[in-house]
């Protein structure tokens, strides 16, 4: 078998040293009646060459972002990944090591964690970041559990419906076992109705979630909403987008207490939805209950600066059933990729990437809406990277499938999450898209046959 070491001679010598007659004997503690008395029904081993052919064949049945023009977003984005990110992250010393239980031989990973935490704090305006969680959705849930744990007398969690619908679903899944009440706030104009939020706030409200930009791509001024939540004694949780922070104010500067984000866009591939990178940072006052690992600076016995895992008493392996969270692993490899990506970008690179997303998405939205068939669904808002288009002919499915047949993944239908927007789709434009691709998309969408014709 491919990855084993023991030769027949090795096996014989080892069994002799053990004093066992056979390998079978080593399993004698497993009662015979519990043994699997047949072979596993799994196909026979493939050589590397066969496996390569096989997986290539499977890959060939898929249309990826590289083999098409991708305008899909909704929480996962086709941003450019510099070669240096891939080159460094596949170094075996990074990807075949584990949690730094022995700091003396893990200073590389620990320093990267510390640098990652600093980068995240710099962008979010928070005091402390952990070393990452699973993804954006679970980070948001963990933030809610953290916020509520600090507010033991309060029970309500306010979530506007312009927060990513899958994140809200995950929150619902987790909260159904608690006595917290999930209060949804409708956002019919796409952006947050601040006065409606104010009406909902009361002395039972433990936290409020504010998304920037929101799921529809709209950039909102959350200053007033955050201040109102604070006045009511609620914790403000921001769902941020890390690329947008190249141009947008840090959530800490508009009043967030805890910031979470999906970090996929920071140098991590789309890979059909995961693994991604759950980002979470908070103000100092929350750190004693923050989930996830944290690297901290200290000195070794010779006075050299070094890094260790710290504040471990927060975690499940010590606190067990009293832990705020059950989380154990983090997404170390993807936090590493994010740290490399942000080092390569620097302040100017991140700003330019965010500007390109702004300019190109605005260009495409404006050009599409010159066509009588299309209009912006939320004309009063300011969209960044992503926007919602309404098809006046109400044939989103037909439109998108015709675009797909011409090699364009043109957008996401909103009907799955928002039945009221069944005539709308969400289009995302990253810095990777060229003007020619944007013009081609307009062409494909506008020269599609009209709904009546296509149904004929």
């Amino acid at each position, binding site marked *: 078998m491919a*990855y084993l*070491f*023991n030769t027949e001679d090795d096996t014989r010598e080892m069994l002799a040293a*053990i004093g066992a007659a056979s390998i079978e004997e080593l399993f004698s503690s*497993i009662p015979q009646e*519990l043994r699997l008395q047949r072979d*596993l*029904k*799994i*196909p026979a081993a493939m050589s590397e060459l066969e496996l390569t052919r096989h997986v290539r064949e499977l890959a060939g049945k898929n249309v*990826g972002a590289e*083999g098409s023009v991708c305008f899909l977003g909704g929480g*996962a984005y086709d941003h450019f990944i510099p070669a*240096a990110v*891939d080159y460094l992250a596949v*170094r075996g010393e990074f*990807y075949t*090591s*584990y*949690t730094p239980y022995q700091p003396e*031989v*893990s200073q590389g990973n620990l320093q*990267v964690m510390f640098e990652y*935490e*600093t980068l995240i704090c710099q962008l979010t305006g928070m005091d402390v970041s952990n070393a990452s969680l*699973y993804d954006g959705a679970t980070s948001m849930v963990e933030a809610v559990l953290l916020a509520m744990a600090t507010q033991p007398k309060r029970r309500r969690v306010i979530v506007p419906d312009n927060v990513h619908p899958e994140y809200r679903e*995950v929150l619902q899944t987790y909260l159904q076992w608690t006595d917290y009440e999930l209060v949804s706030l409708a956002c019919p104009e796409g952006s947050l109705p601040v006065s409606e939020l104010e009406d909902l706030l009361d002395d039972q409200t433990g936290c409020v979630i504010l998304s920037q930009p929101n799921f529809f791509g709209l950039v909102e*001024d959350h200053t007033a909403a955050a201040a109102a939540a604070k006045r009511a004694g609620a914790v403000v949780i921001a769902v941020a987008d890390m690329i947008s*922070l190249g*141009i*947008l*104010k840090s959530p800490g500067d508009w009043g967030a207490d805890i910031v979470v984000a999906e970090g996929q866009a920071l140098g991590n591939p*789309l*890979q059909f*939805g*995961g*693994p991604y990178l759950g980002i979470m940072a908070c103000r100092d006052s929350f750190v004693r209950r923050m989930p996830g690992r944290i690297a*901290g600076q200290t000195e*070794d016995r*010779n006075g050299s600066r*070094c890094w260790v895992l*710290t504040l*471990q*008493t927060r975690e*499940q*392996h010590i606190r*067990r*059933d009293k832990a705020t969270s059950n989380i154990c*692993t983090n997404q170390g490899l993807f936090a590493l990729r994010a740290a490399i990506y942000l*080092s390569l970008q*620097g302040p100017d*690179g991140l700003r*330019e990437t965010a*500007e*390109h997303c702004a*300019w190109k998405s*605005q*260009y495409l939205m404006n050009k599409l809406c010159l066509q009588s068939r299309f209009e912006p669904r939320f004309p009063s808002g300011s969209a960044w990277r992503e926007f919602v288009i309404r098809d006046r002919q109400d044939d989103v499915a037909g439109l998108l499938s015709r675009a797909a047949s011409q090699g364009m993944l043109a957008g996401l239908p909103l009907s799955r999450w928002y039945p009221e927007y069944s005539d709308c789709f969400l289009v995302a434009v990253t810095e990777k898209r060229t*003007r020619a691709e*944007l013009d081609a998309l307009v062409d494909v969408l506008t020269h599609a046959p009209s709904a009546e014709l296509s149904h004929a």
Partner: protein
Amino acid sequence: MRNMQATQLLFELSKPGRRANRLPDSEVPQPDMQELYPTATLRQKPAGLPELSEGDVIRHFTNLSTLNMSVDTHFYPLGSCTMKYNPKRNERLASLPGIVDLHPLQPDATAQGMLELLYNVQGYFAEISGLPGVSLQPAAGAQGELTALMAAAAYFRDLGSQRTQVLVPDSAHGTNPASATMVGFQTKTIRSREDGSVDMDHLRASVDDSTAVFMITNPSTLGLFENQIQEIADLVHDAGGLIYLDGANMNAILGITRPGDFGADMMHYNPHKTFSGPHGGGGPGAGPICVRDFLEPYLPTPRVERVDSAEGVHYRLGYDHPKSIGRVRSFVGNIGVLVRAYCYIRACGGQGLKEVSENAVLNANYLLTQLAPLLPVPKGSRCMHEFVASASKLKKEKGVTAMDLAKRLLDFGFHAPTVYFPLTVQEAVMIEPTETESKETLDAFVEAIREILSEDAETLHDAPKTTRISRPDEVQAARKPVMKWTVSP
């Protein structure tokens, strides 16, 4: 040899005006951000990121990487973590266009190859576990546990049954009780006997009609197969409860015995352990779960489904499961890890997987036999894939602790075993060699331990000596935490 300059913090290496990435001209109108967005939403000064050239970045991270021990460079017998070799073909295949660049929300019709792969890996997981219902969604073992407990809670809720307790052995991983609390269960700890097996009297006295789930790790963290498992399962099942298997130690039993056949109703895999996904310096993992048929309706959505119709076979993400607990994360799952697991399973084949476990158990028993005369192994003379030695005699006689031994091993070029876990063994040294190590490596490890034990206590207290740093002050780190870089005053 060390490049001390390149391993300064990124922020210390930063120099205004230096940069790596540049974008091409945008080719579209470039209005000022102030025209597009409200001023109150915009950054007033540039983000506080370091300014570096590409060469700076490469040299910095390359040098940092050399400060780590890893499976690619060292024997890494970290008990309970299954630090096996990570095949390079998996990395290449998981990075193929058509795999690595798929958007999670693209139409099913454009991802048929991926869905077929995922559907088949579900089938392999079901076959290996003997449990037919599979969810690929959970992001890690701990989340798999949580998801399965939610499914169990939903099942009991449907039955109108008021079951409030989850029973957990004292040797269990901390995630077990932490997960139970998150689903609103109370945790009750069940004692282990001296040999690491479940104290049946205590279990019998604890199981009643409030018992929802008994969570067990089998083989246990001591590396022993719980041979009372059938009796345990019968006891819990007769009381109307369910058995959860923490699959952390599946590397010992692939193709030999199946959780579904020894009484488990639900389990998770840790593909980054058992199926060779890289550990990545602490993740990502994945935590797919398998359950019995009556729990299947409660699994998270979406689920990967196969549809056979007149037009042929196609695969889809299925959302129509009204009893589902809902989603536990965004999108489909940690696909990158699952693709690697798929590649590993296909490279091994059914017979090869059994050989994996046979060799993992052979290596562990050989190492146990060689080490036991040097370092006592209190719980048994045979083991499964790992075993727990104890340094407590050493501590009494020489004042040398498990930690000292662990630190000194680093000087000999070996990663340390897991120490001080499980809590049920004093001065625990938990060793898991895995099947991807040679007899020569195991022998060298034994020789290193032999030599270390002959050294004087002072040398061991001073270890490690060859690493860049030694014995960092964790008390200072926790008392006055410094968790990010700040400009020095």
